[in-house]
């Protein structure tokens, strides 16, 4: 093989879909077809997964540590909820508007976030989410304050599919949106833009020295990720037909970070796997010990940190890698 062909193949291989990925999404589709009893949990997982993928773009690719990612999730949820009151009750339209609005919020706040070091970024992201929470809390005439948004209702999806009480349409809808946006994010990270984001977070000095504007790249990925988080929030608002202050709460920012820590950063699937594990464990524990599940999940997380994800997941990861490599 000529060097040229080798280089072309090598770059192509870095972006090609692997068999394991097809299997992953086939399993997701199967869950919609064959697990009707679990739709509520599965819907939660899909939404949390999209939220975690968004954080992975920020943290795993952009290298920005955020402790306030719920700002975007919650903002998207409120936008989606408020839109129905303004008469925009078609879910997909609402989703689109919520995504665009949250992207704009992400771009606007990136100016604050991208200044300074990791520690400053943690503080600033946290502050932004707390400020939004307080605004939502105070503007009761708009948001309903602590009572939440009352009486939001959606027309059938695309005018065709009504949200049913079992969550069949809801989960199918969330899963479809998750897949489309995941595919978009996956496409983005293997584009020249995506590589330049990775370069910018890995070595900003050299990135500038090859002519790439570091700050603008990070602003771009932060805005895009914010939009994804906003869509995730909007999905929650639409599929649960309810929005409360909880969507902006700190525990959401912390949980999504935990999911990403569990699943691993920088390969996009970490967010999905982390969300799946976190939600399933949470659900099982809540069933086993309704009162103490938070204790157990806390204990599990402490063990996870002490033992290290690498060691705990060495086996499944090795298996995953084996399939990955062989492709």
């Amino acid at each position, binding site marked *: 093989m000529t060097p040229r062909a080798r*280089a072309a193949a090598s770059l192509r291989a870095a972006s090609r879909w692997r068999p394991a990925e097809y299997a992953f999404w086939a399993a997701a589709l199967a869950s919609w077809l064959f697990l009707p009893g679990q739709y509520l949990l599965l819907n939660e997982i899909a939404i949390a997964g999209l939220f975690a993928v968004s954080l992975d773009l920020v943290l795993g690719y952009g290298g920005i540590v955020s402790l306030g990612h719920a700002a975007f999730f919650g903002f998207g949820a409120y936008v989606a909820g408020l839109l129905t009151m303004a008469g925009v009750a078609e879910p997909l339209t609402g989703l689109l508007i919520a995504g665009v609005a949250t992207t704009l919020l992400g771009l606007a706040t990136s100016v604050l976030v991208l200044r300074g070091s990791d520690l400053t970024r943690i503080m600033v992201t946290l502050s932004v989410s707390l400020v939004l929470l307080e605004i939502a809390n105070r503007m009761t005439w708009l948001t309903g304050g602590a009572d939440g948004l009352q009486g939001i209702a959606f027309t059938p999806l695309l005018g065709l599919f009504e949200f049913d009480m079992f969550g069949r349409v809801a989960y199918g809808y969330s899963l479809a949106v998750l897949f489309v946006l995941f595919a978009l994010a996956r*496409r983005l990270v293997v584009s020249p*833009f995506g590589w330049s984001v990775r370069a910018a977070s890995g070595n900003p000095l050299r990135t*500038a*020295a090859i*002519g790439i504007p570091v700050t603008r790249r990070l602003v771009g990925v932060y805005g895009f990720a914010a939009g994804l988080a906003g869509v995730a929030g909007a999905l929650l608002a639409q599929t649960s037909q309810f929005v409360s202050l909880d969507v902006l709460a700190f525990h959401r920012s912390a949980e999504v970070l935990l999911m990403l820590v569990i699943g691993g950063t920088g390969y996009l699937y970490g967010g999905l796997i982390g969300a799946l594990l976190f939600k399933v464990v949470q659900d099982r524990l809540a069933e086993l010990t309704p009162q103490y599940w938070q204790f157990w999940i806390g204990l599990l997380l402490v063990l996870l940190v002490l033992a290290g994800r690498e060691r705990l997941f060495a086996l499944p990861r090795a298996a995953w890698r084996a399939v990955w490599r062989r492709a």
Partner: protein
Amino acid sequence: MTPALETIGLHRSFGGLAAASDVSLRLERGARHALIGPNGAGKTTLLNLLSGVLAPSAGRILLDGADITTLAPDRRVRRGLVRTFQVNQLFPALTPLQSVGLAVSRRLGLDTQVWRRIGSRPAVIDQSVEVLARFGLLDVMDRPTRGLAYGKQRLLEIALAIACGPRVLLLDEPAAGVPEGERDEILAGVAALPDDVTVLLIEHDMDLVFRFARRISVLVAGRILTEGTPAEIAADPRVRAVYLGDGHA
């Protein structure tokens, strides 16, 4: 003719220490110019000023006659002013192919593409392979950079700059840390640059300097002591005094 790169009264101080003081340099198009001087003379500071990593306290920098004094580093690169670093500044997680491919994509204006994958344009592959081949990096092009031998990393350091298509190239001690036998390989790729590319070389290895440069400037304590042809510099008693006095032979 307008010089390719010119500085006028460039000045930069850190606290009370003047690391660059009234530096006026003039590099004609196609120059092979070396900047030498004892440790701490301010060579790297000057390079940081030229590349925009540091802002000067006073003075101006002209690239092809245009004032670039306040331009951000990435804007200077887009205008053809490219540098390398004394200590490797690479992308450890990326492969040489990906790193060079990114630089080539940028040069071709494709770096803001979000929809097509990197290297989907044949031109990116062609030019990346050409640069990698010139620096003998083809055999390691798809291994992560962090695992490469130091010599290979050093070559990649320069290959990345070449991939940017420089019109003025600033080389900060390209042979630093490279064993003597491999130094020729480092400069071979630079020597193969087209004649109209201007090169400013900072280097400690006098052998390399005298083989490469057609003009040499001597920087001492932030000031240009003298400038001339290699023969003139070699014969200059002041230069000898600086180097001998500083413990260098």
